[in-house]
């Protein structure tokens, strides 16, 4: 599948944004993170900013972005429509939570309720994003039980990493935040390795035989219907990443998991300003790594239409 940059950025940014929003909503609303104006303002601006930037970016790959409002209509059948509705609906409790927790400096009571609602909205939105991919049968690498948990784990992981960096920067860092971010990173690493292991051993029942209805033997493409690349090959016949996948997987592991984990362990040992710097570096490294991971997620996915072209 062709990795459109707008969609790669969109899923990575909103994943981190919703992860951070959910953590702030739960931990801030229930008072585990004390309301503090600048910490709250930067945290909410970061999470809502990432979400808004991601959503705007996602309209960049539309053919007719001016009609995007129509996407809020088909929630009965379409995960994409559900994603649109959930993402917009989540802004309401998130905005109220921002008013209560950041501007009014409150936690508990109604602020806790809107905080939990914002967290629930964030989780739902990430689920709908995951289901868009998990529900596509023609792409075996996506239509698997690994896809939805991956979106949730990576959202919690990158959100937790941002929260840890944020708390550290405002001198409110804690061992709990560090340990949480580290454990989430290790969980994400494990899940990604398990996913790759699964995908590399996939036995896909759909073959050139079933695609053409020609039973038995081998079916070899000897002539395409066209001489140049068409929409199908440009959009679904993307092959560059499969060529470099081993290298790109190593880059992903270093940037998204290994480096952040090492930096977090260093942060344990260092005093305040240095620990915060290490935490921030860990977050930056992880976000960069997740962009590569998401690019690979698309580029390594093989659509059944490529069977018609002998690819």
């Amino acid at each position, binding site marked *: 599948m062709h990795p459109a940059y707008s969609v790669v950025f969109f899923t990575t940014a909103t994943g981190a944004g919703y992860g951070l929003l959910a953590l702030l909503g739960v931990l801030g609303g229930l008072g585990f993170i004390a309301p503090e104006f600048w910490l709250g303002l930067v945290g909410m601006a970061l999470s809502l900013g990432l979400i808004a930037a991601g959503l705007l970016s996602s309209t960049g790959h539309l053919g007719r972005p001016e009609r995007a409002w*129509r996407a809020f209509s088909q929630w009965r059948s379409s995960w994409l429509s559900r994603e649109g509705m959930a993402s917009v609906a989540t802004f309401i409790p998130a905005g109220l939570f921002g008013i209560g927790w950041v501007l009014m400096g409150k936690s508990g009571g109604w602020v806790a309720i809107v905080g939990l609602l914002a967290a629930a909205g964030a989780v739902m939105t990430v689920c709908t994003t995951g289901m868009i991919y998990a529900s596509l049968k023609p792409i075996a690498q996506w239509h698997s039980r690994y896809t939805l948990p991956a979106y949730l784990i990576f959202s919690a992981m990158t959100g937790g990493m941002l929260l840890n960096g944020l708390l550290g920067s405002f001198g409110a860092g804690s061992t709990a935040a560090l340990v949480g971010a580290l454990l989430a990173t290790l969980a994400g690493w494990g899940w990604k390795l398990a996913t790759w292991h699964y995908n590399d051993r996939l036995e896909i029942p759909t073959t050139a035989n079933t695609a053409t209805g020609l039973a038995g033997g081998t079916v070899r493409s000897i002539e395409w219907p066209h001489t140049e690349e068409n929409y199908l090959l440009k959009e679904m016949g993307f092959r560059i990443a499969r060529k470099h996948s081993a290298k790109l997987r190593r880059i992903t592991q270093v940037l998204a998991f290994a480096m952040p984990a090492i930096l977090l362990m260093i942060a344990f040992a260092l005093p305040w300003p240095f620990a915060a710097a290490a935490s921030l570096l860990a977050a930056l490294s992880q976000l960069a790594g997740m962009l590569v991971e998401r690019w690979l997620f698309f580029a390594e996915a093989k659509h059944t239409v490529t069977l018609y072209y002998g690819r």
Partner: protein
Amino acid sequence: MTCLPAQTEKKLGLVIDLDTCVGCQACVTACKEWNTGGHMAPLTDMDPYGGRVDGVWFNRVHSYEHTTEQGGRTVNFPRSCLHCEQPACVTVCPTGASFKRASDGIVLVDEDKCIGCKLCSWACPYGAREFDTDVGVMKKCTLCVDRIYNDNLAAEDRVPACVAACPTSARHFGDLGDPASAISQLVEERGGVELMPELGYKPTNKYLPPRARTERAAKVDAPALEPIRADGGFLGWIDRMLSN
């Protein structure tokens, strides 16, 4: 509405005979010619005379070499929308632009509602949908919905353009929901198959596999021509004269 009808009154579709298709591309050009002025018009071509030709087509003919224990053969394979009974291209559509008609089962796109998110083309395992980069919307085969019900055409012309154009009658059109229809009978008789049945899209269109090989073909092991004997008779004399 992108929810699917529980059932459709008819299941209009095509049956394509892989035994008789000669890969002449007549259906391809007839489709393009009709539909670039039809319901989903235009079928935009980008850079049509340049080095990177690209454009929207609803029907593409591939050629394959199918090799089995009995030997190999070339199979020409037209590929177009199969108007599935379970078209995920419709259910994934966020805007309601894609729909399956309850009356005849034809899957269509309302170009005025399409936002060009391309998700439907990802959801189609068969590559039936093609994006028009110029107009910014998705396009697909309409089963020539503007021909098959068109009272301005003679009755025999009320079939999809690809069917009308096929010189070997490899393409058949009809109601596959009616077991008594000629086209259903044909599928029954020839053992028509669905493409990628394992994915569960339940395509309406069926493909008739090439017929089994027979031993009826002419034997080609005739003896090689012998030179005319040089001696004797009129022909021998001609041979001698011409050999000089």
